[in-house]
């Protein structure tokens, strides 16, 4: 996603080569210029990059020795570098945890033939096998239905993922039914911005789902500093300020049972690309639905463009933004705050009267002020079905965080959302209804027709 211009580095190097030595060893010719404009020779740069990766894991102590972690691999440059770091660590016997790789196939969203789809997945399998790690395959559409089987019920639910033990086993993971459901949902989301956010949330859900199904408590992802700075700004732009800290910290604990770990967050995209070039690390270009979107329609791409532009002129941009997020905290997870039924982040909608959220509601209310009676009578005339839909939509909205409300805003039929999300939003209001039932005799309701005297 991050389109850092390849030619930028050689250009700078031409200016540097011959004029300077490596800042580290003061001996060899520099080949890489890092973000602080330090010119490193090949050896020193590789040491620097590996050190950034290892010290992030070492210092943060987010992974305990002998732990078995799930590593997300998309095929892109960042996660390809991540796998290489892990492989090198393993070779040197310095990796104190074991790794299983997971790849999410997102090709259901792109019009490719089954054959092309299999070929792409095949490429992923080859790379992961080269690195010597076991691989689990899953697909984005899996997250359209992640209803947990009831305890005691025989596990009829289809598995979230499957192991790939030999190359031949790469038969289509595609689940056509769920794939269609996903496509239908995306088509119903009115904006690119909503689609991209939904896909991101869904991707997260798949990772969590696989981790939970297979008993992993850590998911390692390849977010670079560049990607994180884009994430931070995108979160801010999309009303997800409360999630900035979770989205960017080295150990994201918001889900409780599964932690998301970001060990290459101290390397920027240029550094990762330089690493890949010097180490001949292959990455795979897989067609993605986002390729078709123009940057002027996608908040994430617009933001990426904005930040890369700034970064060119002000090299401290990315570090500054990441530094901002490092100083941010989040809601207390221990207190078990209510979570968004879509993205599983703590709800950020319990705000006081003096807030942006209330200001928006007041604005809407003022518009309806005189029209309220009219719309009520309209509602009364309309069929029970639409009434039911409206209640469902209201319940759904109440169960979502500010950002996810934006995402599904304009979605006519909330039942298109993933089954487990719909269930969660219903169970939430069910429990409210239950509460109401329990205290019903104490609720004074004038409109209750069955008072003894009537």
């Amino acid at each position, binding site marked *: 996603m991050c389109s850092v211009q390849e030619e930028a580095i050689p250009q700078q190097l031409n200016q540097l080569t011959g004029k300077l030595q490596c800042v580290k060893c003061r001996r060899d010719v520099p080949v890489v210029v890092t973000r602080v404009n330090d010119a490193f020779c090949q050896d020193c740069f590789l040491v620097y990059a590996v050190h950034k990766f290892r010290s992030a894991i070492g210092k943060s102590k987010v992974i305990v020795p002998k732990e078995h972690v799930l590593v997300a691999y998309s095929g892109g440059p960042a996660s390809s570098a991540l796998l290489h770091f892990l492989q090198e660590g393993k070779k040197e016997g310095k990796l104190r945890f074991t790794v299983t790789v997971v790849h999410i196939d997102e090709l259901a969203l792109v019009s490719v033939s089954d054959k092309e789809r299999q070929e792409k997945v095949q490429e992923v399998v080859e790379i992961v096998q080269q690195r010597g790690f076991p691989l689990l395959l899953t697909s984005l559409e899996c997250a359209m239905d992640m209803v947990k089987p009831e305890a005691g019920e025989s596990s009829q639910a289809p598995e979230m993922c499957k192991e790939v033990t030999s190359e031949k086993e790469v038969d289509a993971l595609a689940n056509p039914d769920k794939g269609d459901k996903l496509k239908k949902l995306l088509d119903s989301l009115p904006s690119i911005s909503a689609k991209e956010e939904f896909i991101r949330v869904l991707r997260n859900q798949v990772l969590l789902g696989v981790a939970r199904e297979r008993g992993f408590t850590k998911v390692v992802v390849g977010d670079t500093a560049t990607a994180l700075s884009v994430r931070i700004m995108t979160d801010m732009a999309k009303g997800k300020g409360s999630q900035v800290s979770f989205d960017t910290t080295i150990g994201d604990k918001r889900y409780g049972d599964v932690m998301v770990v970001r060990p290459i967050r101290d390397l920027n995209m240029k550094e990762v690309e330089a690493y890949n070039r010097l180490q001949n690390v292959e990455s795979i270009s897989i067609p993605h639905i986002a390729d078709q979107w123009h940057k002027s329609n996608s908040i994430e791409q617009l933001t990426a463009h904005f930040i890369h532009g700034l970064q060119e002129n002000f090299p401290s941009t990315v570090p500054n933004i990441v530094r901002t997020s490092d100083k*941010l905290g989040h809601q207390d997870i221990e207190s078990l705050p209510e979570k968004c039924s879509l993205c599983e982040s703590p709800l950020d909608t319990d705000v006081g009267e003096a807030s942006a959220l209330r200001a928006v509601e007041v604005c809407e209310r003022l518009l309806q002020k005189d029209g309220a009676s009219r719309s009520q009578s309209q509602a009364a005339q309309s069929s029970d079905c639409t009434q039911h839909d409206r209640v469902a939509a209201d319940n759904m909205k109440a169960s979502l965080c500010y950002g996810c409300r934006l995402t599904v805003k304009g979605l006519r039929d909330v039942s298109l959302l993933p089954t487990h999300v719909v269930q969660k939003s219903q169970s939430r209001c069910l429990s409210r209804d239950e509460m109401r039932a329990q205290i019903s005799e104490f609720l004074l309701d004038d409109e209750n027709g069955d008072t003894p005297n009537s």
Partner: protein
Amino acid sequence: MAKRCRVCNGAAQIKRPKTGDIMCKECFYYAFEEEIHHTVLAGKLFTAGETVAIGASGGKDSTVLAHVMTVLNERHNYGLNLILLSVDEGITGYRDDSLETVKINQQEYGLPLKIVSYQELYGWTMDSIVQQIGLKNNCTYCGVFRRQALDRGAMLLKVDKIVTGHNADDIAETVIMNVLRGDIARLRRCTAVTTGTDGALPRCKPFKYTYEKDIVMYAFHKNLTYFSTECIYSPNAYRGFARAYIKDLERIQPSAIIDIIHSGESLCVKKDVRMPVQTTCSRCGYISSNELCKACVMLEGLNKGRPRLGIGKTHKERRLFNEELARQAAEAAATNCNETTTTTTTTTTFTNSKVCCGGKGACGSMGGSGQAPEMCGSNLQSKSESDCVGSVSPSGGGGVAECANSLKKVRIGVPTAKPNLLEF
């Protein structure tokens, strides 16, 4: 076919910029005003009987603010005494029209108007500053001085609060800018509807959730007289980037501005992050995170003919200046600590720090126009003040707050300041 207002079903005249709703003018005015009323109520901005200064620049934001505040004060019986307060930077020709505009507003709303000048507050007009420093950095000066001018002017008027016309667009820009700059302290502060509650004169932003485009729409249809006061010099570069970014965002997501403000409001700062200690300027008493506030550093530079002081945080000259100051202060302290601080010096100093202290109602005697510039200028280094500065500067930033404390103690009339000072 005539379009119908979505609220009252009457003939519609406008499409509201914020929501895209088709409305009649009256319904738009009402919605616009009542949203601001909600911000006032929800943020508990005022208490009946308070005197509130409206920062009036003659620009659209402050003109509409003066109008709406007058309307709401009557409609909802706020019980406020409203005053218009304008700042004259002393730029020949530049303010003439806008001050004229403010004077028209004054007549329309029947509000008292007070104009304070840079000359009065700092001893320098912007024209004389530009003469000395050239055109390059004058925006920095103007910005810093303008920020303080309103507070200083308001304190002259002995008001309880200031309201400014900062709108939702401004706040969203500031949020983005502070994320880009990694300025966590400002990031935390910038979404507050009232700032400066601790010590300084409270500043409120009733337009916090009001879109700029709505303000323009309101001013246009109400035929309010305003003057475009865009700074003639290029605005802050980063703010320009942030503004362009938000404009692009709005095209994709019309609610982007309010979304960003929501984001800003839901940020929380880690407990272990050290925030700059907000203290008061040791020279003028204005709220500051450094020993000297930026205006005083700049004035020092101007008065000493070294105008580059205070531009850029780590500028060599500023560092040298700080060292020089510390040395001077240490010398003064050395001679002073052994002497008995005379009551007269103490009183003079603290009267002065009272003047600009920012404490509500604490400022007593800021009368003559000559006094303020003197206080912020170079020559007021009364002994006990430098005494205080000198004793703490070796220990770094943390000491400044203590220094301010001991100042406070004296101010409220505790006579035991001397032993405190000697303990260092």
